[in-house]
């Protein structure tokens, strides 16, 4: 698919607004292929917003996103998405395998039934995250970590080249954390590009090859050893930029 010359994800001068209030300004980067990239920043920095904007779930005010040089609409099959766990109702009447099979719907056609192969793939992906024994468990009976693994398995069924994961480590148990790390290494060994929204500064350095520091604007992006410095972290976490916040408020009120 992607030749070495074209970035898996190119974000060009992207500005994103939530209810007309800009939350991300002039984001601009090219991702390297086959790397584990940690997206780090304080609460309200716009980490999830950036992921959603790349996935086309939010309208952008200006700029564009390219997946291997093409607009997202042409390349959806190359991108797998793991939303935040809290975004769905876990009391919904489906079991773990049902949820994982949903990963195949995108390529099945609206009115098609999942084929035997789709089901086999779903089962294999559940197995990959250590959840094969829970396939027929109703999702509300799973622990938070197990629910997270179900979401990861669903993304794996998409067999994408790029994965965007929104806080997969948030509030999970040790077993799930270990399973996710194994999975990330496995994806890297297959030359997949993975972007992970991450909250824990203690582990960020250890988990990721590249770090993207974000706080309403792109503070720094590069190899972990270069970017993950006390000075850069201070800039990222050193409070909001007052003028930028004020400007955002003004724009929102005008609209």
């Amino acid at each position, binding site marked *: 698919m992607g030749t070495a010359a074209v970035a898996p994800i190119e974000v060009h001068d992207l500005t994103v607004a939530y209810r007309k209030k800009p939350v991300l300004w002039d984001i601009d980067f090219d991702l390297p292929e086959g790397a584990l990239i940690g997206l780090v920043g304080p609460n309200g920095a716009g980490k999830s917003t950036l992921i959603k904007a790349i996935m086309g779930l939010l309208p952008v005010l200006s700029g564009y996103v390219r997946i291997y040089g093409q607009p997202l609409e042409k390349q959806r*099959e190359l991108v797998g998405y793991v939303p935040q766990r809290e975004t769905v109702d876990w009391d*919904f*009447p489906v*079991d773990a395998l049902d949820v994982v099979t949903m990963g195949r*719907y995108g*390529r099945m056609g*609206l*009115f098609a*039934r999942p084929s035997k192969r789709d089901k086999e793939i779903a089962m294999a992906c559940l197995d990959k995250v250590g959840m094969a024994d829970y396939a027929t468990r109703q999702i509300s009976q799973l622990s938070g970590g197990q629910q997270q693994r179900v979401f990861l398995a669903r993304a794996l069924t*998409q067999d994408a080249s790029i994965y965007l994961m929104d806080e997969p480590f948030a509030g999970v148990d040790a077993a799930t954390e270990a399973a996710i790390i194994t999975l990330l290494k496995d994806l890297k060994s297959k030359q997949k590009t993975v972007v992970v929204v991450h909250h824990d500064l203690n582990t960020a350095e250890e988990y990721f090859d590249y770090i993207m520091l974000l706080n309403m604007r792109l503070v720094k992006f590069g190899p972990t050893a270069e970017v993950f410095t006390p000075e850069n972290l201070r800039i990222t976490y050193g409070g909001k930029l007052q003028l930028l916040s004020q400007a955002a408020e003004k724009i929102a009120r005008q609209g």
Partner: protein
Amino acid sequence: MGEFWDLTIRFFSLADGNVRWVVAGAILLGASAGALGAFAYLQRRSLLGDALSHAALPGVGVAFLVVGYKSLPALLIGAAASGWLGALAVNAITKYSKIKQDAALGIVLTVFFGLGVVILTHIQKSGAGTQAGLDKFLFGQAAALGSGDVALLGSVAVILLTILVVGFRSFKLISFDSGFATSAGVPTGLLQFLLTTMIVAAVTIGLQAVGVVLMAALLITPAAAARQWTDRLSLMVLLSALFGALAGLLGAWVSFLAPRLPTGPWVVVIVSFIFLVSILFAPKRGIISRLRQHRHGRGKIVREHILKALYKLGEQDENWSGRYGISQIEQAWSFSHRELNAALRYLDRRDFIQRDNGSFMLTEDGVVEGARVLRRHRLWELYLTTYLDLPGDHVHRDADEFEHVMTPEMEAQLEELLDRPEYDPHHQAIPNIGREGTQ
């Protein structure tokens, strides 16, 4: 009374052609409302159904004024259009103002309904003789459905059910996780529009039989009842459709018995009864089953407290074959005598204790169980004082609760973490009897 049975037999024997039409119509209307209601319920848009049905009323009136006579297709189109308008109004209000959705629903519902009543009153006053049917849209009248009406309403219901079955997986996906669906290239917006349109349609075709005021009950209550019985969406939708159909059928029967009574309230009574039975008696989710589980858990707690108390008494006397009276066992707990006696009987039956003239002694099994409970209690106390830095006099209560729910795996983890301790924070020995790796 004789007339009641005569009419009932005539209704359920389906001998009368007219009755057949009404029955078929009521079942189809109920089934489509129930099935689609399941999705509205799961998407937490139950109140939208209520706003939709109320918002349909002005459309009925306007359609009548425009056409000039009571034409069902025109009335349906009018009702659907103004129902949709109501839904759009709710969206617009929440999007462009700071008013929250609950208030927006309330505003739209009352404004549209009020407008509808004004228009219907105007039609009535203007003396249009043929308006005779319009007031039925308020509370519904199933028995008044003619064969032509049913053919039209029934066809719409069949179409709705067919689309729902064919697109089932897509509707399931967007209802569970619309963000993921969009990211995977599924046309979420289009599907949601289709689903909302179908809900509007299901509400609209039920209006004549059930009425705008109570139509929401046929949409939501069967779904809420069905959810109690199953954790599988396909089964839930099927059950919801069945409950809706049953409510429709019985509503039509009541309407047939007493044609002057409005049907809507009866449908509500019937679905509410189904809901009541479901929420009480459903396995797992039902109230009674949950109470039973709770009682079961409570019984276990009482039993474990008794074994622990007997074990501690033995510990004091350094001999576990002593006999103790109930007042010694009881100590300071807030268990009723009934609970205590039930637990003692149970333990006696299972040979954990021997009872003799109101005094009790642990059996060999009882000693092991008592030691197990006390060990967990003291391990947890030690864990809390060591790792949470809680003072020793703060941990007894927590341990009293947690000892009953601790799993063997957690116990093993605690043992390892605390390095197989010998004493708890109060310098009391942690019992060894039956301990893993101890003889």
